[in-house]
């Protein structure tokens, strides 16, 4: 990113709180990692966070680099209460960076994932070029004026809650499980990922059910018609083919 672009981004109203939170979070991540690993390694997440800051890759790069740093320590600290607090602070800092990045992206780039829409050929472009080129995605930014102080402070004050919750979830996961011959920490990760995935799936299922309960009559009609079509389309096609054949035969006889 060139300095001019950086200055433009900084001058966008409403972006400053989130950029500040993101930079402070990167600083806290480096400070915590310095307690358990060497100096150069501890600054990898900072570099990753700044480099990927204005693209969608920022959070992924930070999370992966923090995971790498935690698994390649210069010295391993025993599980003391101080280490637990440091882990909590690290967890909150990573979460702060991810939230700040997502909200800054909503103001600078787009609030919802890009909708690519129909192919460009339907928008008037003809030929081979139009067939393979998609139209420009419709992107909507969040208005920077909507960023309020209570929103930022609520985000910051909720961070310890999520860190403590994550800590208790980790404590609840069984520690001495051997999955596919892997050592126990990997088994714990497999169980956590699996459980979170299934809970996510079930929650989405129930949310979908609640959404169906809000259906209007016309939506419900289309839904039922869609189901009827999905279940009887072959029979409908066969019946209509015979009907068309019969009508054609009748017409020929009349002539």
């Amino acid at each position, binding site marked *: 990113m060139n300095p001019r672009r950086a200055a433009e981004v900084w001058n966008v109203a409403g972006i400053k709180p989130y950029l500040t939170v993101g930079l402070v979070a990167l600083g806290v991540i480096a400070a915590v990692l310095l307690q358990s690993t060497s100096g150069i390694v501890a600054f990898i997440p900072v570099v990753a966070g700044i480099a990927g800051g204005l693209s969608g890759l920022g959070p992924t790069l930070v999370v992966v680099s923090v995971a790498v740093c935690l698994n390649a320590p210069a010295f391993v600290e025993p599980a003391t209460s101080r280490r637990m607090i440091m882990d909590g602070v690290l967890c909150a800092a990573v979460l702060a960076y991810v939230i700040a990045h997502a909200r800054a992206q909503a103001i600078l780039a787009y609030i919802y994932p890009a909708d690519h829409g129909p192919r460009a050929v339907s928008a008037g472009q003809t030929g081979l070029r139009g067939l393979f080129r998609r139209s420009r995605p419709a992107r909507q930014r969040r208005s920077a004026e909507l960023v309020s102080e209570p929103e930022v402070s609520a985000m910051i004050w909720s961070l310890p809650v999520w860190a403590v919750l994550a800590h208790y979830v980790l404590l609840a996961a069984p520690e001495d499980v051997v*999955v596919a011959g892997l050592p126990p920490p990997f088994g714990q990760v497999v169980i956590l990922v699996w459980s979170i995935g299934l809970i996510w799936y079930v929650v989405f299922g129930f949310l979908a059910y609640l959404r169906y*309960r809000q259906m209007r009559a016309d939506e419900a009609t289309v839904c039922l018609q869609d189901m009827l079509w999905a279940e009887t389309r072959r029979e409908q096609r066969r019946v209509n083919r015979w009907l068309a054949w019969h009508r054609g035969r009748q017409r020929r006889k009349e002539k």
Partner: protein
Amino acid sequence: MRYWLREIGGWLLVALGLLAFYACYALLLGGQIAEAGAFTVVGVFIFRGGIHLLKTAVAAQVCMHAHQRAEREVATLPAGPTHRM
């Protein structure tokens, strides 16, 4: 009544799907990852089937209610001469 049977069937399938997910968790605790994977697929299909049945029941319920409401509104209209355009 037609949609109530579907609603009950849907909830039964959802409960069965949740049971399958719990079985996955129990198998994972025993370190049986392959069996847990197979049970996850089974659970996903059963749970999704249950939600689909619930969706059908809710859509039928909404349509029936709309139909009944329309019939009631027609019945309450004042009887009189109709004008042809």
